[in-house]
């Protein structure tokens, strides 16, 4: 019985549509759970500046506030370990997701980012068996997700040597930054056949490329509604083909249920894996229809989903 | 040759130029032990420059510096200080954020080590007691909290203080400009005591009677050269003015009392003491000991009459700063821009600046008030202190404001220029302008129609007509001291 338990969400960043969708999903799902009396409280907290030190302080405050569990999307996989350790020592259950932490006492709901990067190249190899030049758009330098996805992409290129990464820019996971970076490097690049991305930057790349007289390469998308819409337009007009892959913001609700299960006394493995959400040419329309205008393609999880994930990990 | 051997400092044929300006054009100056050398000259004559040469701050482009008969090849600030050369600069050269004790530490480089605070306090307090007996300044106070007169007292005492290397030559560049008569007296007395004990002093001032009564020898500079040099008794006031080359009409006589009561009231202000009023065409002095609320009244009058949010179409007041570094000059600008800023409203159409008219007006005023510069487009900082002050004067007079507030504006202005400015003031007053004038100099106070005397932040007396004289003012200034 967890009806007296209080759960907190520690979130490091709210400045993009993915995070906003994540917070919305959290609010929706936990709101119902609280109303149903499953848990006593599920309060979300966001830091202002997307900084590990700020989030560490936030976690320490949560310890003081007496939460029973903390669900955590971390600014850094390692820099919060000190605070997470203190929470564990105070008897608090810590479940990290998306931005996971390496502290052994915490649970991790991870997406295999490396695999995500590799699968992008794999997709391209099927679509363009003859290979060619690729442009890589990376995220924020020094952040672990960026490093993981990029490593996966480079693994993929090693696996399919017909591809070659001829340019690499940092788009900071923001459309406008990506657009700017791509526009800057594009004039000096040879022909490119594909753009591998990390999510949230495909539309910016498309814009930058559309501004030149180049042929539109295959741009891997990141599940944003504007990307999907642009893809749909291209698909309808010119039969443009690509795929879109990202982690679903609703994974926060999975983390919530996992935390609830742990509080309920369930035996749960420390490392759980969720699949990333992939959209392909054939299911584009259904996904687009289900996505809020301007938002991100999303899946929300139920308690039953969580139990299934926990069981399958055993 | 013998003279050179004995001289504390001997500068020989020093030449310094800043671009086209020859600040020093072959100056030879010797200072003997046990003498006070008075140095006078018009604004921009080169006095401050020769001071910089002597204290090691400036290496002359030609010429040499010798001390105790030894020619000094690598002369610099530290060499000068090691030989006991000390300097009081005219503008504030203390750190306002530090306490007096900490400033003493800065001034005396070798004071370090454990317990320096105690030693520094002792050094500066001893010196303050010696120069200004009964000064009442606590050496733990921050310099920024002191009045301008108190700062100057600290600075003077600092120069005479002894922290190991005894001062041998003290240079005073207009030290009395912010001191009232009694403090100036104390300082001059100390200079005499110091000289009698074998020390040397170079004393620069535009207040000639101070020079005449304190110096042993007077050196007159003009346009970067020494034009006269004689023992002090060889000069009188008139002779000195003549030697400086200023054709000044010695006209410090009091204004003839005019029929004022009929003039309309133009400004009134409620103060803590007597009420303050000003009539059209009046010249009003704010007198009393330095730092007793005169500047505050001027600032209050200015603040009450000028808008901080919207430009005034017809401003009632304009202001001539005395502390020009703080609230006078715009250092990045040319002389012309510095001059025109207050009257810019009249030089614009629909907010657009009429460059030609600005230029014309600038050239006109350069001539009227004789600003010593080849070109009004030069930077304001290329002017000597006194000439900068003239620009500030011109700035205020060029406006249409009927009331001019003046915060001891004649600091560092030479005698000749002063006479010209006095004449302009009188003329403008005759045309109906009102001047409210804070001054530390009795000669200037006597030029005024009416005098408000300040004491501890309030107006304690109002003198008019024949009652405006030194005795009455001093009496009013010290009123209530005993109480």
């Amino acid at each position, binding site marked *: 019985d967890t009806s007296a338990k209080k759960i907190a969400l520690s979130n490091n960043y*709210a400045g993009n549509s993915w995070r906003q969708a994540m917070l919305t999903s959290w*609010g929706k799902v936990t709101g119902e759970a609280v109303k149903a009396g499953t848990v006593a409280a599920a309060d*979300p*907290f*966001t830091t*202002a*500046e997307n*900084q*590990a*030190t*700020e989030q*560490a*302080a*936030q976690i*320490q*405050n949560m*310890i*003081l*506030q*007496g939460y029973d569990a903390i669900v955590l999307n971390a600014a*850094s*996989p*390692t*820099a*919060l*370990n*000190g*605070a997470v350790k*203190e929470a564990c020592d105070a008897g608090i259950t810590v479940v990290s997701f998306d931005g996971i932490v*390496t502290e052994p006492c915490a649970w991790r709901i991870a997406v295999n980012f490396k695999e995500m990067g590799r699968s992008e190249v794999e997709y391209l190899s099927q679509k363009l068996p003859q290979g060619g030049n690729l442009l890589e758009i990376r995220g*924020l*330098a*020094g*952040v*672990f997700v960026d*490093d*993981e996805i990029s490593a996966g992409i480079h693994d993929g290129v090693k696996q399919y040597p017909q591809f070659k990464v001829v340019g690499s820019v940092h788009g900071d996971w923001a459309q406008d930054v990506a657009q700017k970076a791509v526009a800057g490097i594009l004039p000096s690049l040879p022909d490119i056949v594909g753009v591998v991305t990390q999510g949230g930057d495909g539309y910016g790349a498309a814009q930058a490329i559309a501004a030149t007289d180049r042929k539109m390469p295959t741009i891997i998308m990141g599940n944003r509604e504007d990307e999907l819409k642009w893809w749909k337009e291209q698909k309808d007009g010119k039969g443009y083909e690509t795929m879109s892959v990202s982690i679903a913001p609703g994974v926060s609700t999975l983390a919530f249920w996992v935390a609830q299960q742990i509080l309920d006394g369930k035996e749960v493995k420390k490392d759980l894996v969720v699949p990333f959400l992939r959209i392909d040419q054939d299911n584009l329309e259904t996904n687009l229809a289900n996505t809020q205008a301007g938002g991100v393609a999303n899946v929300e999880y139920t308690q039953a989903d969580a139990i299934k994930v926990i069981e399958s990990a055993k | 040759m013998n003279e050179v051997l004995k001289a504390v400092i001997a500068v020989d044929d020093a030449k310094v130029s800043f671009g086209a300006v020859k600040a020093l054009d072959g100056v030879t100056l010797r200072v003997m032990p046990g003498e006070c050398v008075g140095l006078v000259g018009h604004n921009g004559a080169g006095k401050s420059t020769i001071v910089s040469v002597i204290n090691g*701050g400036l290496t002359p482009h030609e010429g040499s510096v010798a001390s105790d008969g030894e020619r000094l090849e690598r002369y610099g*600030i530290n060499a000068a*200080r090691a030989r006991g050369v000390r*300097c009081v*600069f005219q503008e504030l*050269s*203390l*750190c*306002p*954020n*530090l306490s007096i004790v*900490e400033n003493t*530490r*800065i001034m*005396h*480089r070798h*004071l*370090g080590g454990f317990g*320096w605070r105690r030693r520094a306090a002792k050094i500066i307090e001893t010196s303050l007691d010696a120069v200004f007996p009964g000064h009442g300044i606590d050496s*733990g*106070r*921050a310099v920024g*909290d002191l009045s301008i007169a108190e700062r100057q007292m600290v600075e003077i005492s600092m120069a005479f203080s002894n922290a190991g290397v005894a001062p041998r030559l003290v240079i005073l560049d207009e030290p009395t400009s912010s001191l009232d008569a009694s403090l100036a007296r104390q300082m001059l007395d100390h200079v005499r005591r110091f000289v009698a004990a074998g020390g040397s002093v170079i004393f620069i001032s535009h207040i000639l009677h101070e020079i005449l009564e304190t110096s042993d020898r007077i050196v007159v500079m003009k346009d970067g050269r020494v034009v006269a040099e004689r023992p002090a008794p060889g000069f009188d006031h008139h002779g000195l003015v003549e030697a400086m080359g200023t054709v000044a009409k010695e006209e410090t006589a009091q204004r003839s009392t005019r029929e004022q009561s009929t003039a309309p009231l133009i400004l009134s202000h409620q103060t803590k003491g007597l009420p303050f009023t000003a009539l059209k065409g009046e010249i009003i002095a704010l007198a009393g000991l330095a730092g007793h609320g005169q500047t505050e009244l001027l600032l209050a009058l200015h603040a009450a009459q000028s808008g901080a949010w919207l430009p005034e179409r017809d401003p009632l007041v304009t202001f001539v700063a005395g502390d020009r570094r703080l609230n006078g000059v715009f250092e990045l600008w040319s002389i012309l821009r510095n001059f025109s800023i207050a009257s810019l409203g009249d030089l614009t159409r629909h907010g657009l600046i009429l460059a030609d008219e600005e230029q014309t007006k600038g050239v006109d005023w350069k001539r009227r008030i004789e600003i010593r510069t080849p070109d009004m487009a030069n930077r304001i900082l290329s002017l000597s202190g006194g000439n900068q002050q003239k620009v500030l004067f011109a700035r205020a007079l060029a406006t249409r404001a009927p009331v001019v507030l003046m915060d001891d504006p004649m600091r560092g202005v030479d005698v000749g220029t002063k006479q010209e400015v006095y004449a302009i003031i009188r003329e403008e007053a005759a045309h109906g302008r009102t001047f409210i004038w804070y001054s530390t100099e009795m000669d200037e106070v006597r030029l005024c129609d009416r005098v408000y005397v300040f004491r501890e932040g309030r107006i304690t007396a109002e003198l008019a007509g024949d009652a405006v004289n030194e005795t009455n003012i001093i009496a009013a200034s010290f009123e209530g001291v005993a109480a």
Partner: protein
Amino acid sequence: MTFRLSSDALRLAIPALSLTLLLAAVFWLQPRAMSYVGLNLLFNLAVPIALATIAQMLVMAVNDLDLSMGTFVSFVACVTATFLRDAPAVGILILAGAIAIYAGLGVVIHLRNLPSIVVTLGMSFVWGGLAVLLLPAPGGQAPDWVRWLMTVKPPLAPMAIVASIAIAAVAHLLVMRSSLGVLIRGIGGNQRSVERAGWSIVAARAGAYGLAGLFAVLAGIALVGLTTSADANIALRYTLLSIAGVILGGGEFIGGRVSPVGAVIGALTLTLAGSFLSFLRISPDWQIGAQGAILIVVLALRLMLNRLEKREKRR
């Protein structure tokens, strides 16, 4: 004669009072914080911030501003979590070199008469780049002694409080009481007069920057001690935080008016303000805005107390 506080003491009274008020509010909202463990949790992350604030204060004392504080502390954190643990000698050498570069910046800024803002802006890219090169992905581990130092449990008061007091005391001695401190503040107050007294301004400025570098290095080490590992972006917010801390503590941008004790109090206040907010439980949309609001409130408090001070002075 009536009792009169010196302006330095008043400068301190204001931040101290705002900290007390905020602390009272936090205790009222969350009585649990009123314990040994609670205080440590509230304040331990303020320790590196306090050190960085002192570093920033030293630069501000000579009328400069350091926009690279955050990236520099991040860089130091990366060095601490990698070299200082695996090869202490190399680590110490790198950190000493970094301090020397800081001192060098002071020299260059003075000699070439450069605006410190631009030079440190440039340096912020350099430190950021070096940090990314060192740790392309977050990681590393805090040396054991650092970890021990930051988690030690002294008797009576928790580590965070003891450390804050120690930092304030050392910085006070260094900046307010020593000759070097007087010289540094003197440059901020009136550089020309210090020069005329025969001091080498270059050396003094190098000293100020070098000391700032030293305190910033300590900040980075302390930070890693708390977080156990580092990443290249770990302390970016320290730039603005340290400036805000100095200002909250009664320091000023120009004129050499600084207060080390105030700066430490300012850092504690900033940290506490964040906690206060999370105890209030505001809607997520406005949580970020509330951080701005609390800064405004704390600074408005400063203004109110400043007014009191002025009235006090006039009397």
